[in-house]
């Protein structure tokens, strides 16, 4: 892999653009009920922001931002949020992922909306972590930098 950390233009632009991609990814995740978007798309954009910094700054320097060992635990945490929401709804008396039975405040439509938001957050975290882990695994054992 080519060293990229000595080019000022690419590094500066990647560092400038990456937080905006993250903010837009969070917007896509949290606004996914009302507009096009959702957990998968937002998680992919979060992973794109992380991988952009990895490509621009070099894989070793980018470990300071998001270490290689975080990818799989973050994906597992996302799956756990997804499963936990469904399981809590099931413990509340409904079926799996029956959002109206979640122990939340508000009427049933608001509970459903919040439950879908939890699901989207879980899916977003899982997609972000797993895509970053796939990128890191592709570079595993390669003399990077």
């Amino acid at each position, binding site marked *: 892999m*080519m060293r990229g950390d000595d*080019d000022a*233009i*690419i590094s500066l632009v990647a560092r*400038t*653009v990456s937080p905006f991609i993250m903010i837009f990814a969070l917007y896509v995740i949290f606004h996914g009920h009302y507009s096009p978007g959702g957990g998968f798309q937002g998680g992919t954009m979060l992973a794109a922001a992380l991988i952009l910094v990895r490509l621009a700054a070099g894989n070793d320097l980018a470990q300071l931002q998001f270490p290689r060992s975080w990818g799989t635990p973050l994906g597992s945490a996302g799956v756990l949020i997804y499963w936990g929401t469904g399981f809590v709804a099931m413990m509340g008396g409904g079926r799996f992922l029956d959002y109206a039975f979640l122990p939340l405040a508000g009427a049933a439509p608001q509970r459903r909306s919040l439950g879908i938001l939890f699901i989207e957050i879980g899916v977003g975290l899982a997609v972000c972590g797993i895509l970053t882990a796939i990128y890191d695994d592709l570079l595993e054992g390669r003399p990077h930098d």
Partner: protein
Amino acid sequence: MTLQFLIANIVVSAGAFFLLVGSIGLIRLPDFYSRAHATGKSDTLGVLLVTLGLVIHEGLTLNSAKIALIMAFIALTSPTATHALTRAAVRFGLKPWFRRDGAGEKGD
């Protein structure tokens, strides 16, 4: 109202013209560097003009503000992508294209 749509149509058509020029350059030019030279500039300008035309067509709304943000990010990232590609090609050792007979010595 009509003048606004007329200006928007003219700007979008100019953007489409620059995109056409970039595509012709991508097909006709001989090697990687000159193709990057053709597409890097004219595609950026073409996409910027098309989105500017959309902003003019939309007027002052939230959607046009979003399109203006898209314009800013395209103006920032598209030349950087071209720069990164050509830099990677230079560091890989790709030689530029020369005319075969004169090997670039003749001024023509």
